[in-house]
């Protein structure tokens, strides 16, 4: 086992990894940039190494500096967290060459699964269902129509050179094919200078469901149940839960087997996540493998009782995964809300700044993986995640109620947060009834504005603070050199 681990990340995830290290008796090394000199992960680690200025390229993305920091501090392994260098095959290789263990899958696995075509090929070979579609482009409408018959309508025409929705068309039946084909191709040609298009099966309102997997270096692979991650904004998840409201025991077994098959086919080692799309008829299709610890891993830890970071470290140290699939069972329900420094009223625009006040929720079934403290600065340079609030309870309804209670008691002043937005989502009929599809936010919350606060109580609080609060007391001290009394302030500017 490692004596010392360097955590090549920042914020809540670095803190979370260091906690498990401490429980395992492993010394931790933080790395930090100019913007993070007083960040929580630096205060949490046993040692800290300065990397460079705030730019990620000079700090958290700088492989050579990080590897040098690990060597200089005699760390035996590097945990990359998520983001930054977590899915960088070159970094994993460089760690190996420097004699350091990379806590994650082998470099070649990261590389293979990071390549969409290669990943698809591996999955097809491993018997994992993939989204039906053409593997090469063809501009000829009759050829596309023939393919569409094989795939089954509705289909989606996509531009080979595409992106950003340009050159995309949904085709509901053969009569629409020719028209859609010409339109998509000419749109693609004008946008990308390349009019070639191909077909994929189109799914209306799918769910995003992923399976956590653990694999050791001795060929043993298990899954740790699913996570439902359909509530997304700007393609980023904001609320996750497990179990999925759409799951049945049979489907779970089937998808779990596919996830294990996917991991085995790729030669996976360490913790990873196999993402699937689930359609209305409960057919599922492979999307991609995330070769890292996921942001939303805590909900899996809550229902399975398993510390994923501990297993990541054990496996990286060559340990045997002595859990069998039968050992894994979910208990209760867990929900996670991501708390970002962002303005939900203004298209979730980041809201950096100083945390003027912080009161974290607490109580039964509540876990807050938090990367800030009162007085901390939220820098503009990095992902604005502040914390992940996780609630666990006996069932889904109780977990939602617990989350609402926790959010109402979570006070972060100084930056904008989506707390009131999250409360509205959780309280919505659609969420309560489990109607969680990837278009959820777009469909129900496009023009969201916060509910009016309790105006009368706010006015009362304002006056109470004026008369009894610090502001009033300070004024009294400045006008007279004696202890503050609320009466002193009364005549100040009012008749």
């Amino acid at each position, binding site marked *: 086992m490692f004596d010392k681990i360097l955590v090549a990340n920042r914020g809540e995830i670095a803190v979370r990894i260091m906690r498990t290290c401490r429980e395992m008796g492993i010394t931790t090394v933080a790395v930090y940039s100019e913007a993070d000199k007083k960040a929580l992960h630096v205060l949490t680690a046993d040692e800290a190494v300065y990397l460079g200025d705030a730019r990620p390229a000079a700090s958290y993305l700088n492989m050579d500096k990080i590897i040098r920091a690990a060597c200089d501090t005699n760390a035996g392994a590097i945990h990359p967290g998520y983001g930054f260098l977590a899915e960088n095959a070159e970094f994993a290789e460089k760690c190996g060459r420097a004699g350091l263990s990379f806590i994650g899958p082998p470099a070649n696995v990261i590389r293979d699964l990071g390549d969409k075509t290669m990943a698809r090929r591996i999955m097809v070979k491993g018997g994992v269902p993939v989204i039906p579609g053409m593997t090469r482009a063809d501009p000829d409408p009759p050829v596309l129509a023939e393919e569409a018959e094989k795939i089954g309508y509705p289909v989606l025409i996509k531009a080979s050179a595409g992106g950003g929705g340009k050159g995309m068309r949904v085709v509901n039946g053969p009569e629409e094919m020719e028209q859609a084909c010409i339109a998509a191709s000419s749109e693609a040609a004008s946008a990308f200078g390349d009019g070639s298009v191909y077909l994929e099966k189109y799914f209306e309102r799918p769910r995003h469901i992923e399976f956590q997997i653990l694999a050791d270096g001795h060929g043993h692979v298990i899954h740790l149940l699913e996570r439902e991650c359909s509530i997304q904004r700007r393609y980023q998840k904001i609320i996750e839960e497990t179990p999925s409201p759409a799951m049945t025991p049979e489907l779970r077994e089937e998808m779990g087997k596919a996830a294990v098959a996917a991991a085995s086919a790729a030669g996976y080692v360490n913790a990873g996540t196999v993402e699937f799309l689930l359609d209305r008829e409960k057919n599922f299709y492979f999307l991609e493998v995330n070769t890292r610890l996921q942001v939303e891993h805590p909900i899996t830890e809550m229902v399975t009782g398993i510390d994923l970071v501990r297993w990541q470290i054990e496996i990286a140290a060559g340990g045997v995964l002595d859990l069998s699939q039968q050992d894994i069972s979910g208990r209760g329900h867990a929900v996670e809300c991501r708390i970002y420094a962002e303005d939900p009223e203004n298209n979730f625009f980041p809201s950096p700044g100083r945390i003027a006040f912080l009161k974290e929720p607490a109580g039964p079934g509540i876990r807050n993986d938090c990367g800030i403290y009162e007085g901390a600065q939220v820098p503009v340079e990095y992902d604005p995640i502040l914390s992940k609030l996780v609630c666990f309870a006996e069932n889904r309804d109780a977990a939602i109620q617990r989350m609402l209670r926790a959010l109402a008691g979570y006070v972060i002043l100084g930056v904008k947060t989506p707390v009131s937005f999250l409360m509205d989502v959780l309280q919505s009929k659609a969420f309560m009834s489990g109607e969680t599809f990837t278009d959820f936010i777009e469909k129900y919350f496009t023009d969201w504005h916060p509910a*009016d606060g309790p105006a009368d109580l706010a006015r*009362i609080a304002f006056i109470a*603070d004026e008369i009894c609060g610090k502001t009033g007391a300070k004024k009294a001290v400045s006008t007279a050199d004696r202890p503050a009394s609320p*009466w002193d302030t009364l005549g100040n500017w*009012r008749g």
Partner: protein
Amino acid sequence: MEYRLKIKEEIIPVQAEAVAENNLKISMAEQQFDVSCHVLGDNMIHLMVNGRSVNAYLTGEGGGRNITINGLTCRVEDADLLEQNRGRKKRHRDMPAEVTPPMPAVVVRVMVEVGDMVEKGQEVVVVTAMKMETTLNAPFGGKVTGVNAAAGDKVMPGEILVDIAESENADG
């Protein structure tokens, strides 16, 4: 005492009477509130309002506060103080009667056009100097008759950036 408190665009008169230390009687919109309050920190105040417990969290300086109760935030402003501040500015002899920067600066944006009607105190130009933005306000209400600067222009004190013809009924 009487306060006039503004939330969003609505100003409501509120009467407050201190009946004992940390005890207030507050009335607004024909409702009475018996309030006892305990200040628990710079940003935290606990209230008993007609026997019901309320935790309120406050930030903000001057006449405005953002007040968070049960996860929802209200911006509350003291309307009297807002107006007094404007009044105080008016009384200052050295208050510029023209729209001109206080120091050499660069224009960030001009918010009015020729022909616009402006109110006294309305923001008309934003300039920046030493990475600090400063807003120039209309010294009196009236009609904009000339805009002499555009975004990006270097400007000096004394240069009049916006000409305003004072309205006869303006109170400035």
